[in-house]
């Protein structure tokens, strides 16, 4: 643990806060993933992790290495950028696909229309997947 000893305490505190905050936010996000009753609600949960969860951890990392190596270490920002760019792609594709799957199974969750989500929610809960795949 010798590498840590050279760091000023205030840096350590900042890093610690960042890390724990980021991890906690991400954790809560997955709690949402586990807890929310419908799929469409669940898609919002991971974005906690991809936004501030990742943000805090990455900031913590940047601060830490910058202090450690005594020069700006900011390459981690790339991760944040890419996460911010790529996560929506999955979510968009997935949500849209889910809508169509619900539609195809007769849960009229509005193909292009906002509709009562409750109906789809009902069909979502406890419905095991029978895609044949």
């Amino acid at each position, binding site marked *: 643990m010798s590498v840590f000893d050279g760091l000023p305490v205030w840096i350590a505190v900042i890093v610690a806060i960042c890390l724990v905050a980021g991890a906690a936010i991400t954790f809560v996000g997955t709690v949402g993933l586990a807890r929310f009753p419908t799929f469409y609600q669940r898609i919002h949960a991971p974005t906690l992790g991809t936004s501030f969860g990742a943000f805090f951890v990455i900031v913590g990392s940047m601060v830490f290495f910058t202090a450690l190596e005594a020069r700006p270490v900011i390459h981690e920002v790339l991760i944040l950028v890419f996460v911010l760019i790529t996560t929506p*792609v999955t979510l968009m*594709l997935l949500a849209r696909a889910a809508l*169509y799957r619900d539609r*195809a199974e007769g849960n009229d969750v509005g193909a292009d229309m906002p509709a009562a989500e409750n109906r789809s929610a009902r069909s979502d809960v406890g419905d095991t997947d029978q895609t*044949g*795949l």
Partner: protein
Amino acid sequence: MFEHASLLFLVLLPFLGSIVVAFLPTRARGIAAAISGIVAIALTALAVLSYGDVAGERVLRSELQWLPQLGLNVIIRMDGLSWLFTTMIASIGGLVVLYARYYMSAKDPVPRFFALLLAFMGAMLGMVLSGNLIQLVLFWELTSIFSFLLIGYWHQNAAARDGARMALVITGTGGLALFAGMLLLGHMVGSFDLDVVLASGDIVRTHPLYTPTLVLILLAAFTKSAQFPFHFWLPRAMAAPTPVSAYLHSATMVKAGVFLLALLWPVLAGTPIWFWIVTYVGLATLLLGAYSAIFQQDLKGVLAYSTVSHLGLIVTLLGMSTPLALVAAVFHIANHATFKASLFMAAGIIDHETGTRDIRRLGGLARFMPATATLAIVASAAMAGVPLLNGFLSKEMFFSETALRNPIPFVDVSLPVVAIIAGAFAVTYSLRFILKVFFGPPSTDLDRTPHEPPALMRRPIEILVLACLLVGIIPAITIGPFLATAVSSVLGPDLPYYSLAVWHGLNMPLLMSVVALGGGVLLYVLLRPYLARGIDGPPFIAHLAGPRIFERLLILLSVKWAKSLERLLGTRRLQPQLAILVAVAILAAVTPTLAGVGPLRFSFAGVEPGLVLVWIVGMACAVGAATQAKYHRLAALMLMGGAGLATSVTFVWYSAPDLALTQLLVEVVTTILILLGLRWLPKRFEDAGIDPLRKFSPRRLRDLALAIMAGAGMALLSYAVMTRDAPDGIARFFLDNAYSEGGGRNVVNVILVDFRGFDTLGEITVLGIVALTTYALLRRFRPAADSIPRPEQQRIQSEVEVERADHEEGTILSDFLFVPAVIMRWLFPAIVTLAAFLLLRGHDLPGGGFIAGITMAIGFILQYLAGGTRWVEDRLRILPVYWIAAGLLLALATGAGAWLFGVPFLTTYFQYADLPVLGRLPVASALLFDLGVFVLVVGATVLILVAIAHQSLRAASPRAKGASGSADASRGAS
């Protein structure tokens, strides 16, 4: 010198002749016969000329090196016994050739016949002239093979095919037994040289291996000489052309067995086991053959069974182990050859002239062919043992041997009694043969009127019958010296006293002869009514027909049992095979470790809570995948991804960043790959009504047990290794030299591209091969009927598009991908940049050609995902096949470039270059190698993925079977 040459010539000449004859045109009957005749005459002459050299117990030897270190040399060796056989084989061979010239139809491919006959003659000569046990086996088997071909000469006949096969199977089996026996014999003696073996009788007879050796050799002799219970192949072999029967089945091949017994008599004979087996097998054969011969309706059948019986007689004599019996045996070998060959020829003439060999249809032939009849009658008389003929003399000697008193009562009684009965039977069948065929009312239903054959065709019979007479009347002059020479080569100098004379006074043997003659005549008279009924086959034992039993046994053993055994011992299903593999692997790993694997220190030291949580997920994912893979393939695929992620995290945790990167990237590609494949798999729905008990079927339980054991085994092995001190292995060298000698700080990468670059070269070759294989296979891809239609989702979406006014074909897809596609395209340059970075830094930090290549390939795939196959290939010419070639070539060339510097393949060039602006830069040829890896990986990965992706295009195209699809994949273009 002449001696060596002539010996060699004796064996080689027939084979040479055979080859020459074989190349004659199909119709060249005359020339073929002439050449064969010349060969036979030459051989006879050679044999006759060598007599002077072998007389007086001299042994001629000529040795050629073949496999000297194992004691297997070609030794041509001639002593008295083999001289006698050589002469017989050559001279009777000549007569048979002459006979066959007229016997064989002009329509037959006669050159083939003579070629085989000559080859057989060569094999036979090689056998009798063998001076080496193994060489003898060799020629022994050759005689079987050529006899097989000769019997099956008229292969369009089912009988010929069956007879040939049966003969080969039985005699061939005997040959294999002989091989084993000779090996043991040679082992006991310490040499395969016959002369050494013959001198080592005492060692052999007292050796513990004597009995198995004897049994094996006897098996060979008995099968070859048609002894009970292997006798039945011989009558079946009568489907052969008659010259073949006359030659092989009377004079030569069937004598191989008795020759062998006589040859090895000094070594093997004289023990009780020899006596009991040989004598009684011979006796049984003698009796059975003679009995069966009486009731045959086929002329050749009678002769065949008679041959069996006479061979039995000879074997009995050899079994008795007395010198005089041996003399009688050798004498009878020669006598039987002469009269039986002539009888076969006569039978052949009858067959030829009348068109039948069925005794029931024949009669009164003496009127049509008096000369032939006379000859046959004389020969038959010899066969029956009528005085003044050669058969009488040897039979007399046989009787006198059986009549000797023996302390064992059973032997004392059984030998003479059986001898007399068999003698009587011989008289009966000979009598029947003569009377039925040549006398009585002439047959009426023949196809043509029989008449005498061409004079030259009869000539061989005349010569042989003359020999019977001469030997029978003046034995001491005609055969005496030669017999003595032959016998003395076996018995050595101390020949027993025997007299070759027609009259020995009134004695026991004569009495026995008289009883046999009288009994035979009486039996014939008694049997006439039965025989007149024309039933084929002997009464009482007909249902014990050897051939049928043999065929059934063969089918049972070689087909039915073999099939069920094959099914029992093997499987064509995959799951049992894999289960066996797992079980065997468990066994292999467990057996050595039963001795213990040393102390296993169980400890929870160094537990990392984060990683433990990761592995809780990882294990849950693994088990989940295992349970979901049948009905929820997508779920299983994703769960597999979860397990893969846990693996990657572990790699990072324990200092293997390169592995983590590789694992993650491969994970992504594999997921896409399997997804591409899922499109073509049948849908599979969980059957709600499935019997819950099926989950606990024995097979599943077995598989579960195997899986748990294998898993536990791997866990234990890895734990055992992880918790003990690492050996002082080769790793240190790499750590020491990676930077100073390899020019890289990332030791793993330096190992991959430098220290063990050859592995990497191989590894990328594998990748290239696999890509080409998938491409090749997918060119022939035919989707199953139920997966040809577009996926259900697309169909429903198309329907919606058609229904709705604001939609047109493809709207849903384009809307679906509208924003994602934009992002995916922008990401492409970023991925290219990342790939370039991973490639260039690999030597010093995690990365390298493979990682970069996969990254790049993912970039390409992303574009396919966003835009579809057509869209991408309209814009990018990827040409993956050329990438593969280029990558491999680059890597190969880099490796071979080292040759220019006079160093071995893959020796890297490494130096720091000082450049004006850029400063000090490392220049390593390993980077070039890594570039090759990169290029190949991109090409191979893209080719694999795109080749699968192209199948959708093919299926979607109007001609569902269109081949356009993956053909583009290689062009990847336009």
